């Protein structure tokens, strides 16, 4: 921003102003005015009477005097701000408020080790401004990005307060770690979860290889550059943002009540006499006479109006020599699922403090010879009583609520948890008791202090040397208390248990860059950058222990020192996994009159994750762009096309993100838990510990490389009111890093290998329209992306890698697979063709030789298709039954403003994906409750062609089939906000903004999906799997009220 003018320039301008003001006549009036933006006066803004040459420039106080015609219109323009036109009318003093331009051509974007004018940028990047993140009032920054970044898929991982997001840029390209690289204020491996949305100045997502190539080694999954709020010269601006809200569950899935449950199990072959003898007390009598309708475990676990709040203060200021920005925030969120009464109150709390500053140490001849700056963020996350589990079939409280036996009352007559109905199933338990005993008495804290120091030397005008030292300290501590409990005959503990752990460590990075700008033959402008960087991480230790038999019985006393016994101790203490990377890189940007641009990047990285000889990877990229609008022949179209840029890029990026030492076969020593011990001798209480190689080595392990080509278009039309961006890309990831699914006969963990290639192809576009009609300003912003994912090769004989078994329930085969020619992690299983309605259909279901294909089937069983026509239903009949990846994801934001009111609506949706859903342990838990769908089960000819009979064959559900698969399309209104700015209504308020607002989050979800929430992030602990719903913590429906106050 060019708000600072030198004195001499101002003098000349004042002269100009003087000369202009002599044109005075009868029909003219002399007006005075102030041009400002917020609290800031704009110095040197152009003020012009429209249609004339009469004009002036604002003085040091942002004021001007001008003599203009009656009813004149005054046009004010200032670089970086939107041109503003005001009608003088009969006023003699004008206060002209300038709005900073959001989309104008001099906007800059972060490109890694620097910034560049967006107009000149030749890569595919998307920038989101801090204000667009803050206004969605999300706890996590990523939650707000979801609807605003085409090509970036963001799905909540768990959904519990404090849990993170899965971020995939331009399609999943690896079976290994697919997280993008986060760079916070220039420091790699930043933690975005630690930032408060109000701390964000901008987020730039580098999507194509050319943009990301400057971060070569770890950029193959894309790069997210986060810039926190920077200090600015000017009077201190103090901003307060706060909101308070109430969260509730948005959806409940209907499960059977006690009567329905009994009737369904009756059909399954358990008659009432069976229950009489196995259900204790008078439960059945009460169900019979209607005094007990059964427990609805979902209701029992739902917490109503769970509070959420956030308070944030940001201060930005600075003078000629120093600028600074402070930010403080407090956020707290209660869960919507949990215990109503618990010893430890469930609450997620986050405190952050951020201080950024930069200082001009030595200035000489208008040059900043030496600049110093720092960024610093401290965070504390305190997570209490949030141990509830969701996601998998084990330790999943949401699932327990869905499967919990409705015959079981929550409490017994004494007010204690009612004992489990072990007569029906010895391993069943009371879902609330399980959550309470095993997971509720927990507290974990994490601390971090991250930041950077940098020095910039500018010895000559166009040469800048910058050295940046970044560091991150992270610490954690946690405690848990598990009281003496009995859940059933197999899950109980006669001793209470205390666990405690803590750890802390450091990572650091140092990078040096030299930036030189030069011109050749006048108009050929070059910017060259060379640099190097080194990083080390994993410099830390963890210690934890558990012991049993506490001297106290409360969580408050759950410390290891309060346990006297030493016979039940388990201890662990280990260093963090250490690693490092060393890099050299260079970039040359070229532009000719802003018309033709090109950029070449090269980076070399050495990673400690590979054996010497495979360590170094080289990542080149090239890109070019053409601003057609700058061409002389385009003059005629300029009236409606403001900008039209085409760009193309190609580049290679790497991924080395695997656990360390996989190029060696490591030897694990036995300890109490990994069972490499034996008990020689006569003393049964002594263990001899052994050792064993715990993984097969792969000495040839090397980089995963992604090669991406991108063609793009940036354009603006109709005086910048209409914006359109379009990208088409092809991303090929080669040699992905993966731990293969080993054969059992290998006898130890399978090696990490460069496992295969994968292709992602897609389109992205975003369209925006901003205008006003009368006093109503409005904007419509939409984006959509399409991605198709296909595995090109897998480095084994089979051409596929199966996912884990027992995902949907115990005793089920794998559910998803990576296979050549298919999308990664696609759902694989049997195709079904309805339900056998009668014996004749079973008898007529024959192969070419007339042999029955499913001779053991009964009417009411599922008809599985014999796709390979071999006369039996077997593994080879399995096929693709679903794809968890959406074809299309899209986001929409609508903004309206009228006088002091503003209204915005944000929505997000996906289409073309499937979800594998299972809310019941079909294969091993006969007495699990059912969802009410079961009431429509086959019950005689013609009753159902989808849901098999309740007493059907076990393979109906033990075979993974399309019975488990549903379409996952949804569109969700994620945010509706209505705000009112008191400042606009009461101009005399001594502040620049006082906006109050109300927000509702997730009010509507449009979907045909029958589960709790179509946004499921559970991935069976394999990063390449997705879309599996086994009972999941759903997105809360939240009502918020808040205010933004700016001084």
């Amino acid at each position, binding site marked *: 921003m060019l708000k600072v003018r030198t004195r001499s320039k101002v003098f000349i301008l004042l002269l100009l102003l003087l000369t202009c003001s002599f044109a005075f006549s009868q029909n003219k009036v002399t007006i005075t005015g102030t041009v400002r933006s917020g609290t800031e006066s704009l110095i040197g803004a152009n003020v012009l009477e429209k249609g004339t040459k009469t004009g002036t420039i604002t003085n040091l106080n942002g004021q001007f005097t001008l003599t203009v015609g009656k009813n004149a219109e005054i046009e004010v323009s200032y670089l970086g701000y939107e041109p503003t036109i005001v009608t003088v009318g009969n006023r003699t003093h004008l206060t002209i408020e300038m709005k900073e331009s959001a989309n104008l051509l001099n906007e800059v974007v972060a490109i890694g080790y620097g910034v560049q004018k967006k107009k000149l940028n030749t890569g595919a990047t998307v920038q989101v401004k801090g204000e667009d993140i803050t206004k969605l009032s999300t706890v996590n920054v990523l939650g707000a990005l979801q609807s605003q970044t085409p090509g970036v898929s963001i799905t909540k991982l768990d959904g519990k307060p404090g849990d993170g997001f899965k971020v995939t840029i331009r399609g999943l390209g690896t079976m290994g770690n697919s997280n993008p690289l986060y760079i916070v204020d220039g420091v790699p491996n930043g933690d975005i979860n630690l930032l408060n949305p109000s701390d964000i100045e901008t987020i730039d997502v580098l999507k194509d290889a050319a943009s990301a190539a400057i971060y070569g080694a770890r950029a193959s999954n894309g790069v997210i550059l986060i810039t926190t709020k920077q200090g600015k010269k000017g009077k201190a601006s103090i901003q307060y943002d706060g909101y308070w809200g109430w969260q509730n569950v948005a959806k409940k899935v209907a499960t059977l009540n006690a009567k329905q449950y009994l009737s369904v199990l009756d059909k399954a072959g358990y008659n009432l006499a069976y229950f009489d*003898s196995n259900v204790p007390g008078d439960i059945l009598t009460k169900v019979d006479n209607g005094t007990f309708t059964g427990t609805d475990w979902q209701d029992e676990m739902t917490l109503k109006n769970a509070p959420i709040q956030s308070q944030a203060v940001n201060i930005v200021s600075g003078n000629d020599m120093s600028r600074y920005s402070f930010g403080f925030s407090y956020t707290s969120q209660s869960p919507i699922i949990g215990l109503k009464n618990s010893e430890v109150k469930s609450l997620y709390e986050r405190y952050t403090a951020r201080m950024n500053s930069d200082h001009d140490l030595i200035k000489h001849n208008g040059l900043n010879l030496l600049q110093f700056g720092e960024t610093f963020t401290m965070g504390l996350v305190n997570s209490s009583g949030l141990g509830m589990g969701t996601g998998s079939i084990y330790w999943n409280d949401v699932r327990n609520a869905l499967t919990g036996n409705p015959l079981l009352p929550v409490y017994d007559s004494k007010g204690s948890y009612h004992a489990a109905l072990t*007569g029906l199933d*010895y391993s069943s338990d009371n879902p609330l008791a399980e959550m309470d005993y095993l997971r509720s008495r927990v507290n974990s804290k994490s601390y971090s202090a991250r930041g950077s120091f940098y020095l910039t*030397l500018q*010895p000559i005008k166009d040469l800048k040397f910058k050295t940046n030292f970044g560091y991150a300290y992270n610490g954690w501590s946690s405690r848990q208390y598990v009281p003496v409990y009995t859940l059933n*005959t*197999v899950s109980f503990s*006669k001793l209470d248990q205390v666990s405690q752990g803590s750890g802390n460590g450091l990572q650091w990075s*140092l990078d040096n860059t030299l930036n030189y700008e030069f011109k050749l033959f006048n108009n050929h402008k070059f910017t060259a950058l060379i640099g*190097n960087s*080194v990083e080390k991480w994993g410099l830390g230790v963890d210690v934890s222990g558990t012991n049993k038999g506490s001297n106290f019985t409360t969580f408050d006393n759950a410390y290891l020192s309060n346990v006297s*016994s030493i*016979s*039940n101790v*388990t201890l662990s203490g280990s*260093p963090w996994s*250490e690693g490092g990377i*060393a890099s*050299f890189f260079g970039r040359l940007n070229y532009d000719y009159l802003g018309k033709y641009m090109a950029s070449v990047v090269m980076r070399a990285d050495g990673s400690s994750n590979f054996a010497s000889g495979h360590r170094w990877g080289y990542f080149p990229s090239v890109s070019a762009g053409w601003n057609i609008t700058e061409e002389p022949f385009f003059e005629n179209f300029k009236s409606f096309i403001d900008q039209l840029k085409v760009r193309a890029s190609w580049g290679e990026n790497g991924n080395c993100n695997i656990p*360390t*030492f996989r190029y*060696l*076969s490591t*030897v694990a*020593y*036995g300890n*109490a838990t990994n*069972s490499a011990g*034996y008990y*020689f*001798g*006569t003393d*049964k209480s002594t263990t*001899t*510990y*052994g*050792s064993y*190689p*715990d993984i097969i*080595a792969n000495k040839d392990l090397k980089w995963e490389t992604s090669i991406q080509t991108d063609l793009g278009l940036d354009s603006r039309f109709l005086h910048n009111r209409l914006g359109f961006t379009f990208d088409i890309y092809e991303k090929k990831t080669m040699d992905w890093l993966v731990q*293969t699914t*080993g*054969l059992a*006969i*290998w*006898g*130890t963990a399978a090696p990490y290998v460069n496992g295969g290639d994968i292709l992602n192809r897609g389109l992205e576009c975003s369209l925006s329209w901003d205008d006003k009609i009368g006093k109503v300003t409005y904007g419509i912003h939409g984006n959509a992306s399409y991605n198709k994912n296909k595995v090109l090769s897998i480095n084994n*004989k*089979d*051409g596929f890698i*199966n996912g884990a078994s027992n995902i949907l329930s115990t*005793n089920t*085969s*794998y559910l998803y697979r990576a296979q050549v020619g298919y999308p990664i992690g696609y759902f694989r299983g049997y195709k079904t063709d309805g339900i056998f309605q009668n014996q004749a259909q079973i008898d007529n279901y024959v192969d070419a030789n007339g042999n029955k294909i499913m*001779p053991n089937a009964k009417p009411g069983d599922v008809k599985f298709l014999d796709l390979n026509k071999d006369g*039996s239903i*077997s*593994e080879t009949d399995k096929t693709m039954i679903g794809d968890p990846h959406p074809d299309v994801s899209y986001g929409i934001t609508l903004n309206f403003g009228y006088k002091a009111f503003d209204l915005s609506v944000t929505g997000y949706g996906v289409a073309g994906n499937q979800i594998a859903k299972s809310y019941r342990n079909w294969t091993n838990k*006969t007495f699990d409750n059912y969802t009410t769908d079961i009431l429509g089960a086959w019950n005689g000819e013609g009753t159902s062609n989808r849901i098999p009979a309740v007493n059907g064959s*076990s393979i109906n559900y033990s075979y993974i089939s399309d019975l488990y698969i549903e379409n996952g399309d949804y569109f969700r209104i994620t945010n509706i906000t209505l705000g009112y700015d008191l400042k606009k209504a009461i101009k005399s308020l001594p502040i620049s903004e006082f906006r109050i607002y109300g927000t509702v989050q997730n009010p509507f979800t449009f979907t045909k999906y029958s589960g709790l929430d179509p946004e499921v992030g559970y991935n069976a602990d394999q990063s390449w799997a997705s879309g599996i719903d086994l009972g999941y913590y759903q997105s809360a429906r939240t009502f918020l009220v808040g205010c933004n106050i700016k001084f």
Partner: protein
Amino acid sequence: MILKKSRKMKKILYLLIIACSLMSCEDFLNTTNKTKADTSNYPRTMDNASSLLTGVYSILGRPEPLGSSFMTSELMSDDRFGGGGPNDLTTRAIDQFKKSSDDMFDNSWKAYYFGIFRSNFLISNLDKIKWDTIASRNKVEGQVRFMRAYFYFDLSRMYGEIPLVTSTDAQNLPKSPASKTYALIASDLKASIELLPSVKYQDMNLKTDLGRVTKWAAEAMMARVFLFYTGYYKTETLPLTDGGTITKQQVVDWISDCIENSGHGLVDDFRNIWAYSYVQDYNYTAANGLSWVGDGSKETVFAIKYSATANDWNSTQQKSNQYCLYFGLRGQPLGFKNTFPFGIGWGFGTVNPKLWQDWDDTDIRKKGSILNALDKTELKTYVKGGDNLLDETMYWNKKYIPINVWKDSTKTTVENFSYKLYSMTGTDYQRDNIEDLIIIRFSDVLLMAAELGAPNAQNYLDKVRARVGLATVPVTLDNIKKERRFELAFEGVRYYDLLRWGDASLITTNQTNIPIYNNKVAATKTVSFRPETGGFLSIPQTEINLSNGVLTQNPGWVGSDNNLK
């Protein structure tokens, strides 16, 4: 000014040089592993070797009980049923030669190959270790080769033909012919016999070495392998990897050596081998003047050892004798003080009444091996159908079953006998049972020697019978078969005996229309041996899928027809 500038430039250069030199060397990227050794520097010392050997032993208890050779053979034999509760499909599926799922043996299949990998690793690294004497090396090699043979023999008896892995590389291997696998087993055992020292049981340092493989165990195991291989595959000799063979005479020599020179022998009273004989408050024990000989008696030639250190669920399976738990009495609503001294378990492997009927009452081993739950002199009150027990016969095995003692003199509360014996703190009955699981007992050695036609065959059979007060009978195969059924009942031997004798049809004959109770309701039970399986189990389907068909399913196990409904 220029000077100043150049000085600054120098400074920049200097900084750059520092930064570059920091990286020019790969040292920066070299990181060391602080918690694990790796195969570039391990194993080198004798300590390393002994540590790796312990890692191999640790696999003995690793296979999940239901998928282990001991358990499956017990359930599939004619002497026992599946039992368990309504959700325990797998135990009844094994009993009935069916599947409860395609991957029902996934865990144990993996576990056996863990053992094989660890053995292969140690064997292939023996040359890298700095030994003080050749004897030290022989001791380690002798043990580890026994262990590899042990794992392969269990796998081969359970699954028939299996992939034979002898290196530590990751390979996708098809099934190997039985002759090749048995050649490795025989060669390993032969090496073991030759490498291990001839130290008598009495001269062993039991305090430190009890549980280790001995030359005697290897000789006995060789006999067991020989009998199974030549019996099942109908051959005269056992192959070796070098193309040679092991003849019956060699086996007879070895087993005779074991009998004559090992120092092992029969304990005086058959019943003193089993843990119930520890409990003096148990009428039967008191009345017969029994006294438990404890783990590692002279009669135990090889056993899987368990420990009193199981204190969390993760390590339970390897550390405690899960077989006792699985075979324990199922859910007694009146409490286990009424079934004193027998304790809680899952109720698997209920005993076929046919065995009780076939067994002569005069044989003290009958009541010494089987608990008749309705016998009031044995149990005070036994409740039928505890926790929905299925396949209930009222007969329970007494050899491996949870054993309780009175907690205090009031005799109102029970606790596992291991609490008293090993001062366990006791938090979970699922890991209380820690007596060792005997794999080879000396009476088995005597009977094998008799069956192999050792010079003293008659004497060996007589010894076994004399101990339990039975008169001599001629040493015919028929008599040996009978003796083995009663002497070795519930010890993981019977099923494989039937297979090698070609007597698998007895499995059907002895299990036809047997009266049982399913969840208190009277019913009859019939189990049919499926000859098409050859008596072998189904290979985990996941492994077949992963191998992309290189590994093939065993006969009789393809498709869904064999699922237990």
